């Protein structure tokens, strides 16, 4: 018996989510009184997972796996789960993990739930709490099947250091054919992505035009944040669709979300509510975002944001 965690790496490097899902998996394994096994594919440093409780790392080094393929990867996770007799398989909530998890579940004849935000409240029956109704509620879900597949919501558990003397075992699974060919991958380079960002700075129609986005970008730069925008802004073509956050856009689950000139329509809030701390800057004190935010400034963004940038630069200079 074991708990199997699948971690992702990008060009050989783990991201924060890999450590978070390992931290979580370690606690689930403790609850079940079993061991944690972590699967890593083409990682430069699998031993980095020991610090978060990975007693055993299954390490796959195979150049044919450099391009992600959900069906192929799902089959590898199945092979690892069978080899380690996993009762619980846990994945991240990245776009790749959300793609492969339902495939893994069917392959293992397992019940699956995503959006998991806490440790199991009980392991027999196996019950976890998950986000539902676009962040407007939670449901406690019981999984009845022998094997359970979970996707942990990003930033919901955090990193828990738990240094163990781990070991790494080379694993050479069978690589299946998938029928799907990856033709090209385009990534925006040199920018923090919304999916990975700890801080997101977002602009709305209150900024009046694309020519005014300099202050959003500068604030994001000072904070090492990703930039985002509301739906009307992307619909108007002021910013690319890839920056649209909200219900039909990208979800945001950052530590800090700063909304500038965004009123806070329910669809927008549904997409950003998972962020831990929300700040709103808006001229209208009646804007619904003030009800959802933790901190707010009623004021003109064109005056407030440059001041904030200046003060943040001083703060960074004194605290670095």
């Amino acid at each position, binding site marked *: 018996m074991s708990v199997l965690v699948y971690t992702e790496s990008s060009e050989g490097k783990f991201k924060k989510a890999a450590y978070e899902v390992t931290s979580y998996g370690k606690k689930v394994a403790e609850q079940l009184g079993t061991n944690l096994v972590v699967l890593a594919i083409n990682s430069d440093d699998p031993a980095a997972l020991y610090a978060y409780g990975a007693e055993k790392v299954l390490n796959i080094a195979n150049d044919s796996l450099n391009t992600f393929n959900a069906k192929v990867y799902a089959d590898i996770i199945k092979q690892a789960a069978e080899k380690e007799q996993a009762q619980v398989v846990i994945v991240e909530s*990245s*776009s*790749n993990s*959300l*793609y492969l998890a*339902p*495939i893994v*579940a*069917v*392959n293992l004849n397992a*019940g*699956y*739930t*995503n*959006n998991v935000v806490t440790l199991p409240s009980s392991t027999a029956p196996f*019950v976890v709490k998950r986000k*539902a*109704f*676009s962040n407007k*509620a*939670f*449901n*406690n*879900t019981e*999984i*009845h*099947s022998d094997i359970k597949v979970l996707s942990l919501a990003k930033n919901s558990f955090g990193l828990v250091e738990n240094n163990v003397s781990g070991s790494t075992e080379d694993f050479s699974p069978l690589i299946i054919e998938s029928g*799907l*060919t*990856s*033709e*090209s*991958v*385009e*990534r*925006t380079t040199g920018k923090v*992505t*919304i999916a*990975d960002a700890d*801080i997101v700075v977002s602009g709305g129609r209150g900024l009046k035009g694309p020519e005014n986005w300099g202050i959003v970008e500068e604030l994001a730069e000072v904070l090492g944040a990703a930039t985002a925008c509301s739906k009307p802004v992307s*619909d108007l073509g002021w910013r690319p669709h890839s920056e649209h956050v909200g*219900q*039909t856009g990208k979800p945001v689950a950052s530590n*800090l979300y700063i909304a500038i000139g965004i009123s806070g329509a329910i669809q927008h809030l*549904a997409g950003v509510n998972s962020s831990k*701390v929300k*700040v*709103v800057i808006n001229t209208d004190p009646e804007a619904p975002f003030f*009800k*959802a935010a*933790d*901190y*707010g*400034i009623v004021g*003109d963004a064109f*005056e*407030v944001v440059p001041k904030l940038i200046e*003060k*943040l630069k001083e*703060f960074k200079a004194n605290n670095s």
Partner: protein
Amino acid sequence: MKILVCISHVPDTTSKINFTENDSKFDSNGVQYVINPYDEFALTRAMWFKEKQGASVTVVNVGNASTEPTLRKALAIGADDAIRVNTEATDGLSVAKELAEVVKNGGYDLVLAGKESIDYNGGMVPGMLATLLDFNFVNACIGLEVDGDKATIAREIDGGKETLSCNLPLVIAGQKGMVEEKDLRIPNMRGIMMARKKPLNVVAPVGANAVTTTVSFEKPAAKAACKLVDAEHVEELIDLLHNEAKVI
């Protein structure tokens, strides 16, 4: 090309979310139901294939009779016919198994769905369906072209996009980008009149068992009031974010 579009019947985005029977059931009282917004992108793309490439478009829902108005709306938008699998949708895997039966019986070569429903946000039915059927599958689709039996698909990845190709049959889990928001259609009077005469076939379920159940629902704890900082003293905000919230 025979296209099947899976339609979830979900509470409108602006609905108040409440629960009844000791927080064990969703309270549908006064709730307006709509086509799941993610499914609507898929349906709209299907309409394009119907108009430009002569595809036939069937819509399907797994649910009881109360979901029929939502299927009629999909017919009014332009689908040719509808199927309702007559059973309560309980969990993702059982819904995928019910849909797999519909796909096998109908011989569809392209199955389109939204990447998740806006109520349970489970994001699993399309991937499970494809795996049960051994069809190709692409999640988070933001672009789809079909030429003969060859498909080219763009999917959103964290920080970019990937372009993929494969042969049909194929299951797609779509989102905005498959079509733009401005391309979504509101049914017109003629569409609504025609929808009344289009076939809506009710089929018996295979009776797949659920492997997950909701034990109870919870609403998020009430949030503390927003702390306001004077626009003249933005340094106070920095102090709060650093010392109180500890996020910078």
